C-alpha cells in the first residue's frame, strides 16, 4: 500500500490545496518498507489530483483540503483521510498502527464531527490483512 502525506516543516501540511512537498511511504505488513519525497508544483486542483493518482497513492493523509479537490481525488481512486495534523512521523506511525482515529491528530475545529474513517488501516482482520494490503 502506498500512503502519502503532504509535509511542511516536519508536520502535516495545513492546506493540501497549496502544499509543496509530498512524503510517499510504502507500507507492507504493518511496516514501512520505503519512502521518498516528491515536489507538488501543480497549482490547478485537477492537475494536483491527477499527479497524486499518477504517483500511485492509495491513501492520502492530509490537513485541510477543499471539497472539490477531495472529490477529485476520491473519484480518481485515492482514499482521502482529511483534517489531520501533527508531526508527520507520528501521524504515519498512528496510521500504520491503526490508531489515527485518536482525536489528538484531528485538526482543531474538526473534533466531534462524524468520522468518515476508522483509524487509518481498516480493523477487523489479523495484522497484515487490511483491505489495502493487496493494492500496493
Amino acid at each position: 500500500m502506498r500512503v502519502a502525506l503532504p509535509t511542511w516543516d516536519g508536520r502535516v501540511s495545513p492546506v493540501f490545496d497549496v502544499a509543496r512537498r509530498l512524503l510517499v511511504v510504502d507500507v507492507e505488513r504493518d511496516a514501512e518498507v520505503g519512502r521518498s519525497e516528491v515536489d507538488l508544483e501543480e497549482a490547478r486542483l485537477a492537475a494536483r489530483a491527477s499527479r497524486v493518482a499518477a504517483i500511485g497513492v492509495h491513501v492520502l493523509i492530509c490537513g485541510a483540503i477543499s471539497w472539490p479537490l477531495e472529490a477529485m481525488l476520491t473519484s480518481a481512486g485515492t482514499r482521502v483521510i482529511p483534517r489531520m495534523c501533527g508531526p508527520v512521523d507520528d501521524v504515519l506511525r498512528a496510521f500504520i498502527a491503526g490508531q489515527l482515529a485518536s482525536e489528538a491528530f484531528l485538526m482543531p475545529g474538526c473534533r466531534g464531527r462524524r468520522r468518515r474513517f476508522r483509524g487509518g488501516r481498516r480493523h477487523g482482520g489479523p495484522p497484515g490483512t487490511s483491505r489495502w494490503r493487496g493494492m500496493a
Partner: protein
Amino acid sequence: MSESPEKRATETILDSIADGVFTVDESWRITSFNRAAEQITGVSRKEAIGQMCSDVFRASICETQCALKETMRTGRPIVNKAIYILDANGRRIPISISAAILKDAADNVIGGVETFRDLSMVEELRKELEEKYTFADIVGRSPAMRQLFELLPRIADSNSTVLIEGASGTGKELFARAIHSLSPRRDKRFVAINCGALPDTLLESELFGYKAGAFTDARHDKPGRLAIADGGTILLDEIGDVSPAMQSRLLRFLQEKTFEPLGAVEPLQVDVRVVAATNQDLNKLVKKGIFRQDLFYRINVIRLKLPELCDRREDIPLLVDRFVGKFNRLQDKDVAGVSEEALALLMEHDYPGNVRELENVIEHAFVLCRGGLIERHHLPPALRNETDSKLPRGERALTLKALEAIHIADAIRRHGGNRTAAARELGIDPSTLFRKIKSLGIPLPGSDHGNRKKE
C-alpha cells in the same frame, strides 16, 4: 484557574471587535482567539489555544507566504491581504488579513497578531452587483449597454425581424441568443448560420435542405437549418456577405415564410424568427447596389447597433472580472484579478477586435500568470509596446536611451503629468528631469499639475 482582571478586560475588548483576532507566541502557538475568530474559522477558543496557528487558521498562505513571518522579515506590517482559509467542511472562505509583530516593553519580539475579516459577504455583494450589470450573459454598465438591456426584453417579446449591426467581436451572436432566450420561443431551437463563411450552393443546402436524389450523393433527405429552427430563432450572421442570388431566395422566405428544399416539389412552411447580423454598413451596401434594397427593408424592422469596446471603456473592468472568473473556472486556476498597472494598460488599448480581443488578452495572461494578480508583464507584448510606441521615433529598439525614455514617460504618466512628483519617484532633480524630457523628446500630457512655472 483564575484569570487576571487585565486579561479578562483584554478578552472582552477583543470579543467586541467584529474582525477575527488571534495572537501567537514565538513558537507559532495560539495564545488568544477572539469570538469573531471563532465564528469565521469555526474553531472554538478552547480548541484553538495552544495549537499551531497553521492548523487552526488553515490559510492558503500559511506554508509559503505566512503574513506574520513576512512582517517579521521585512519589519513592515501587512494590511488587508486577500487570501482564503478552509473551514472544516472544505469550503474556501475568502478573507482579508492584516498582521503585525507583538513586542514587549524592552522591544523584544514576543509573538504576533493577526486580524482578519470575512469577505464572503463582500463576495456575495460583488456577485449581486455583477448580476445587476449582467443581462443574459452580456456584461456592461455603460449608458449604451444599459439602453440596450432595457430594449432587449421588449424586442424579444415581439416577433419582428431584428438587424444587429456591430463590428467584429462586439457580441452580435450573444445578443441574438439573448433575444431568443428572452422570447416566448425560448423552448425551441436557436440556430446560427454564418452566411459569409459558406459558398452559395452550400449555404443554400444548409439553409433550405434538400431531398434525396436532388443531386448526386444526395441519398437521404436533409432538413435545412430553417426547418430545424421551426418555432425558434435563426441567426443569419454576416448577412452583408450574401450573394445577390441568395438574397432573392432569402427575400422570398421572409415575405412568404415558405421555402423549397432543393429537389422538393412542395414548399415548406415554417415559423421562424429571423435575426440578421452584420459588421458592415448595409445602408452603404444598398447604395452601392451590392445589397437588395427590398431585402434590407425586410430585415431592418428593428435595428440594434452594438457599441464598440473603445466606446464603452467603462465596461472594461467588469468584462475583465468576468473573463478572469471564466478562465479561473475553465482552467482551475486561482488568479485574483488584474493589477492596477495592467488594468491601466487594458483601459488604454483601442481593441479593434472588441470584446473578443479583450477575452483573448486575458486568456494570454492566464497562460503566463500562475496565480495572484495579472501584472503588466503577463499581457501580450503588442499591448505593452503601445506605450512604448508613443515614445521617440527611431528609438524603439531597446537602447539605453529608449529604456530611459520609457521609464520617465511611465513615471510622468503615473503621476498624472506631475513632473515634480515624477522626478521625486525617479530619484532625480526636477531640472535633470526637464533636461531629459527635452533631450529624449518625451511627449507630455497637456497640463502640468505639479509645476506651474512658465518657461
